[in-house]
């Protein structure tokens, strides 16, 4: 597998995770999937007749099939997708499928794209699990067939399996999986199994119902916030008003006077108020009197930081991609076009703010969380608690959204909870709850960026040169993994989507200035493509306009080496009626972008409002994610990605004044609401390519598609996000 990683041109998270795992003490599990099945080591299952054929599938005598998900379900539908793959090869009946979260154990459940790390991200869950889970399902099926053959004394070749029933036509025998589980459990696990011909798939490619739909409509779905343990206390933490400040002094007495407050403890991130319930903890925090030491803290404002970025952009940065002679081609161009783009900090703001439950007891640490980064969290939790990673047990619950926030290299919320638990009596479980204000002001934002682009056209209007400069913080920089992961001054997550621009332009240069700012940053759904798709797809539209060409035709002509980009572009344009006349006041814009090996094109139809704002009426989306496992989940992810991305470009910004975050809750960190959601039409490209992810790739194209529609309607380019800040809209 490592060979495959090396071949992958995309640097970003994949490379980071391999290095980070190697760097973090105790995490070097060294597991590599070689096509074999990790065994599920539990005698208990064999004893009660359950067939645990491997780490991913258990078949009970009650005829249920339990699929263990190594990935976090945070809305993307991964429980359903992973279970579909197993059920397909097992020939199970969908109604008998259950899904459970796998324990944290990188030796069994590592993400095959992340090396020896268990974690969810980079839209990789289906892509890395597809072959592994097909084999897991086929192995279990082979054991059931073998058990039936032995029991019935018939030849395996005459046995068929359909919808959870094993049958032998000649003898007329049949049995359920549950009937055979106990007998199959005693058999050796086969090494080689035959996978189905995809032409015979009956579940993959159909929209089986989501396994979590019911529990998410009757209030029974369990999130970390819902965990209740005997004797559990609740903690909220007072954190400094500026990033990097420290506690100078605390007057805890007024907080301790609040009924229900049990303890006030200083932790590295601030001061924790621990109480018998959330409300008492929150009231106690209000009453606290903390003096902060700002020495070494970030005290600049975002306007000041952006000015510095603009000055930096005057000079060349670290080279990222260079082909041909861009400077010479620009100098000789018949026409040059230039533009600059500004991107703000963005908070993830998942509906469930950060929270977890921790219980420390002697040599055991237990964590209940919507955990996205189990191996990294085990390592950080172990370091904070003084234990070994394998003494840290993580119960992964479903997460109320994440968008990247719960996967962070320092495990901020988990480590904070551990420091609180350390201060309490041994074994007392503590639930840490971040409020919405803590979330919006707590950092780990999508970084602020400044981009400049220059393009040159020849006399025929063909693009001959493209120069792209990016200025901003590195997501990896400043973490303990910087020395391992930032190569030649370039963090791949800063430039993905720009460095691999698909357009056929002979002279092309991309460079990067990585800045040092004390505002903590993190990947935000679609990572680098959240800004690179915007700048490149708005700018290519500008270049097309300068060349006097239709934006779709102009792109098509430059995509001859990228057929999958071209195909989604053509499909979206066709389905949207590109080129047909729209009523007065309406306009269309288009964008196409690849992220995480999935190709998405979107055409946005907008109406300019009398007050100058934009109403997005309809979005036509074409997606190529290889083989479609569950078309309805793919549609849902495109719809959701469009809404999430649209809210981001229209309204999203975190701003700082003298280092203090100015926003605090949804009244001033505005997100998309129902009346602002466009109609969405999704078209999936039929494909037999390996399946790729859909959690993130729906996000990047919507911003530039809307911006290009605004240009078509008004002749104005939105180059400073969000739209509400841009003077031109």
């Amino acid at each position: 597998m490592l060979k495959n990683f090396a071949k992958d041109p995309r640097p970003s998270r994949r490379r980071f995770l391999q290095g980070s795992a190697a760097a973090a003490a105790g995490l070097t599990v060294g597991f590599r999937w070689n096509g074999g099945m990790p065994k599920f080591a539990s005698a208990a299952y064999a004893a009660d007749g359950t067939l645990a054929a491997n780490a991913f599938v258990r078949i009970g005598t009650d005829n249920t099939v339990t699929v263990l998900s190594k990935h976090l379900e945070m809305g993307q539908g991964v429980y359903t997708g992973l279970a579909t793959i197993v059920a397909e090869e097992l020939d199970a009946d969908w109604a008998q499928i259950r899904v459970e979260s796998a324990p944290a154990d990188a030796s069994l459940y590592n993400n095959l794209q992340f090396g020896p790390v268990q974690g969810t991200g980079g839209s990789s869950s289906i892509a890395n699990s597809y072959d592994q889970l097909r084999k897991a399902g086929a192995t279990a099926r082979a054991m059931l067939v073998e058990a039936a053959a032995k029991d019935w004394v018939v030849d395996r070749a005459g046995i068929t399996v359909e919808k959870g029933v094993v049958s032998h036509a000649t003898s007329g025998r049949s049995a359920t999986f549950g009937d055979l589980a106990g007998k199959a459990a005693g058999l050796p696990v086969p090494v080689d199994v035959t996978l189905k011909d995809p032409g015979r798939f009956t579940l993959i490619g159909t929209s089986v119902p989501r396994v979590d739909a019911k529990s998410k409509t009757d209030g029974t779905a369990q999130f970390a916030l819902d965990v209740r343990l005997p004797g559990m206390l609740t903690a909220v933490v007072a954190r400094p008003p500026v990033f990097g400040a420290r506690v100078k002094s605390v007057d805890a007495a007024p907080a301790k006077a609040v009924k229900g407050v049990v303890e006030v403890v200083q932790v590295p991130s601030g001061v924790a108020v621990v109480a018998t319930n959330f409300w008492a903890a929150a009231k106690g925090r209000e009453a606290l009197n903390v003096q902060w030491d700002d020495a070494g803290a970030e005290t600049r404002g975002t306007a000041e930081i952006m000015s510095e970025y603009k000055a930096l952009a005057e000079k060349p940065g670290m080279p990222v991609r260079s082909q041909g002679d861009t400077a010479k081609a620009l100098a000789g161009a018949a026409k040059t076009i230039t533009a600059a783009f500004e991107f703000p900090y963005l908070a993830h703001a998942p509906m469930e703010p950060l929270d977890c439950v921790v219980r420390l007891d002697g040599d055991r640490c237990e964590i209940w969380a919507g955990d996205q980064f189990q191996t990294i969290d085990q390592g950080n939790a172990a370091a904070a608690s003084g234990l070994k990673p394998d003494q840290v047990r993580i119960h992964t619950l479903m997460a109320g959204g994440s968008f990247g926030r719960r996967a962070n290299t320092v495990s901020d919320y988990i480590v904070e909870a551990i420091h609180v638990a350390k201060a309490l009596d041994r074994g007392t479980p503590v639930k840490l709850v971040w409020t919405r204000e803590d979330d919006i002001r707590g950092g780990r934002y999508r970084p602020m960026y400044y981009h400049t682009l220059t393009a040159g056209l020849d006399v025929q209007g063909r693009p001959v040169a493209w120069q792209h400069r990016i200025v901003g913080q590195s997501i990896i920089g400043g973490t303990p993994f910087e020395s391992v992961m930032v190569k030649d001054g370039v963090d791949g997550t800063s430039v993905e989507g720009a460095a691999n621009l698909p357009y056929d332009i002979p002279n092309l240069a991309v460079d990067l200035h990585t800045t040092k700012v004390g505002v903590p940053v993190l990947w935000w759904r679609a990572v680098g493509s959240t800004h690179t798709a915007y700048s490149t797809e708005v700018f290519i539209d500008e270049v097309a306009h300068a060349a006097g060409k239709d934006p779709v035709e102009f792109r098509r002509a430059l995509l001859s080496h990228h057929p999958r980009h071209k195909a989604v572009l053509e499909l979206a344009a066709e389905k949207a009626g590109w080129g047909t006349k729209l009523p007065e006041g309406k306009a269309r814009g288009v964008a196409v972008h690849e992220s995480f090996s999935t190709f998405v094109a979107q055409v946005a139809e907008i109406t300019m409002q009398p007050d100058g704002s934009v109403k997005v009426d309809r979005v036509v989306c074409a997606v190529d994610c290889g083989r479609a496992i569950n078309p309805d989940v793919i549609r849902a992810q495109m719809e959701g990605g469009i809404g999430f991305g649209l809210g981001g470009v229209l309204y999203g910004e975190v701003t700082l004044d003298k280092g203090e975050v100015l926003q605090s809750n949804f009244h001033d960190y505005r997100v998309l609401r129902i009346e602002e959601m466009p109609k969405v039409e999704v078209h999936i490209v039929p494909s037999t390519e390996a399946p790729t992810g859909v959690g993130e790739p729906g996000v990047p194209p919507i911003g530039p598609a809307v911006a290009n529609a605004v240009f078509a309607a008004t002749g104005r380019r939105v180059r400073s996000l969000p739209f509400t800040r841009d003077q031109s809209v």
Partner: protein
Amino acid sequence: MAVSFVLNGEPVSLDVDPEMPLLWAVREFAGLTGTKFGCGAAQCGACTVHLEGQPVRSCSTPVSSVEGQSVTTIEGISGKAAAAVQAAWQRIEVPQCGYCQSGQIMSAVALLEQTPKPTDDDINSAMSGNICRCATYVRIRSAIHAAATTMEG
């Protein structure tokens, strides 16, 4: 001081700080965790419950203010509109992460109880206070229309 009210049809008496928001009283003292905390400021609607049949934001409703009244949470909804909404939510597969959906459903049920055949504008007005960061809005709208159709039939 104990606060007494009717919760999902049953009388309850909770010994809590009277200023405590109904949300936390219901979650941590009555043990019903289907109602969620999203913002604490009546900005997102994740905590929506029914008070005497009307949707309210329980995160900003002091528990003392519901003394003697009837509160319904996601665990306790019933009736034609509730059944139609929950069925439509599942059939159309509205939820993604699911965290906001209790609140969405409570708002949708209240809407349909008062306006059995809502227009898109009615839906916008009734549902604008419920944020979904997964942006399941397209399906929320479809499911409300579908539930309205079910209720007619």
